[in-house]
């Protein structure tokens, strides 16, 4: 139930477990402890979850304060709901390694692509540099 008519409010989400996706692509899971009017968030017992393919790894991060403008989306996690996922949890080292490999392959393909475009005289700006549209 919303305290604030006609708008959204995070008041009811306090002390509940949430998953937040940040603008830099990170996924954090933690207990939302405090908010403010800019939707800055304070997370407790935060875990950064990295997904690569079907594997994921959790890095415990402790307390996180997220500036409101960096949130893409935020959602409550139902702790009671049975989790039947195909994802497989691995150790931190493994997932970081996987991530590194993924980044590497991505960069390589990107490089090749840029080269091909360059040969044809085209250039496409990288999406992460564009903050406005």
């Amino acid at each position: 139930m919303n305290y604030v008519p006609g708008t959204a409010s995070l008041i009811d989400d306090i002390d509940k477990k949430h998953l937040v996706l940040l603008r830099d692509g990170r996924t954090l899971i933690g207990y939302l402890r405090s908010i403010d009017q800019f939707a800055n968030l304070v997370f407790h017992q935060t875990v950064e979850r990295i997904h690569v393919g079907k594997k994921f790894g959790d890095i415990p991060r402790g307390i996180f304060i997220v500036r409101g403008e960096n949130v893409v989306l935020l959602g409550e996690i139902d702790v009671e709901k049975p989790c039947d996922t195909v994802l497989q949890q691995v150790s931190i080292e493994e997932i970081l390694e996987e991530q590194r490999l993924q980044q590497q392959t991505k960069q390589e393909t990107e490089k090749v692509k840029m080269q091909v475009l360059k040969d044809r005289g085209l250039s496409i700006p990288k999406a992460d540099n564009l903050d406005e549209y």
Partner: protein
Amino acid sequence: VCAPEWPEKGEEWSDGEDGTEMDCGLLQAMAEEDEEINVYNEETFGMDLDSHGTTDGHGDDLQFGKPSPPTAPPDPKPPSPRRVPSPPRQKPQYLPRTAPGHPGRFRGQRGGLGRGQMFEDPAVMRIVEGRPSLKVTKMHLFIMHAPMAPGSPVFSRQPLTPRQLYNQTGGFMFPPNRPCPSTPQPLTPKMMQLRFGANSPRPSPFYSPSSNPVQHLRYPGPVTQLHPQHKRLLSQKQHIKSEGWDPYCNLMTGKEKEWIIRLQMIQLQSENPYLEDYYYQEYYRRKEAKMAEEELGIRSKREPPKLTTPYITKTDSYTPVVHIEGSLGQVAVSTCYSPRRAIGAVHAEQKDTRQQRLEILSKIEKLFIVLLEVEETERMKTTVLSEAEEKRFMEKSQRKVAHIYSQLQDSGGEFLPFLLVSKGKKLVARLLPFLQRDSALKVLCIVTSNLPTLMSRDSDEALPVLYPPLRNVISGLTFSQLISLLKDLTSSESLTTYECLTLACQNKFGLSLLYALLSHGEKLLSSGVPLEPSIGDFETWTDVIFQVAGQLSQCSLVEPLLLPSNLLTLFCRYLDKRTVHQLKSNMESATGFLALPS
């Protein structure tokens, strides 16, 4: 010499070369500033502060004594006795990370005014104990100007944990004298301001703690409030017990939650909630109506809903950002004065049908806005208005109605293009109650004469929306007018009467309209009022009756929107028993109701 007395870290005070001189100069500045603070506080709060005395039994944590007069600068009051009872709080909330070799200077009770320059080490954070100087910024908070309702608890109180007491430092507000919200106090606007903030004064101990922040959100005076039902639902929700104890729960205190809620609600204040927050208002209005209906068991006439949102005089000046005291940063004020820049729409002058439809739709949109204003004025009539005001509103309304009417008429086609669009039908339906008699009659004429077209092109089945207002218009017709309408209905340019009537019978709206017309005719005839018919009226009338009767008895009928009860009486008048009987069964089979309780 002007070395400030610091109980704990005395030995850490070092004397750099310029240290002492700086000390003196700074302390002088500090002293002057303190003087200013004192003056300000006097002006704002009056000199009722129990400055040198004891803490009172309120457990009023935030009461600070005045520091000693500035003529004795090197004597800031030691923090302990006069202040908060709980010792942990006294630990200064800063971490003086003095880099080696840099002397640190601590303001202590002097107040954290961000005297960055006096700390040679930029890493030393400012101390926020003591009284900060308060900026009284102009706020668009109308809460200020209203008296507080006596006895209304403004803040909820929760049992304070030591951690929460700890929390109270940092940008707190200086409390006015002995805040005891249960007793009505004449609050000056400035005082009211200071009650905001996450650390506003705690209420007296005899309040029962409540975890519902909203229950105590009673704004003094005219402010947008939650619908009472909404409030009730919220408080009900609070009582849902949660399983499992989370040792870290309620890190965010109820006060803080209230603060946020308040802040957000401030931004939602509106002087015309029915217009600006339509869906919320409508939702609760309907809920209420439903509940009332269930309670009463009958569908009584709905009174205009009594909203708890009084009207607020909006300031004429508009500031895009508002700085709210006690909060960091600025809050954007959402108004209609600065919407996002719309993409400049370029109107192409193509005449294809899609374009035409879009044009019609855009016209309808514009007219709807005017209509909404008219309806709003109509709704506002229920509030008490002065004679002159009411008259003015009515005139304005009438002008708007006339405008809409002329717009509908003028776009070559006389209503028809609008009526062919379902949105246009809705617009006309909602406009009809406001129209003058002859204008409304004109609309009815258009509808009846173009009935076949309207029916065939009504893919959304939006025609029935026109039925209720048109029925009202019909009930005011004279006999001659009625006859001419019936003539229009049955004589279309391309179709025979037979075809017209068949079509009408197959269409819900058409049939209902026909029934309504006939019913009205019967009413007129049986009422005994002199009819003043024109020549040939009665013949037309009887012709129509026979034609209709023939039609109705033969073809299959759809269920009409409303089956008038006097139809069979009408038919009995003119037709033989057998035909009437056939009609009756045909009509009844369509509706499932008895055509006449005979």
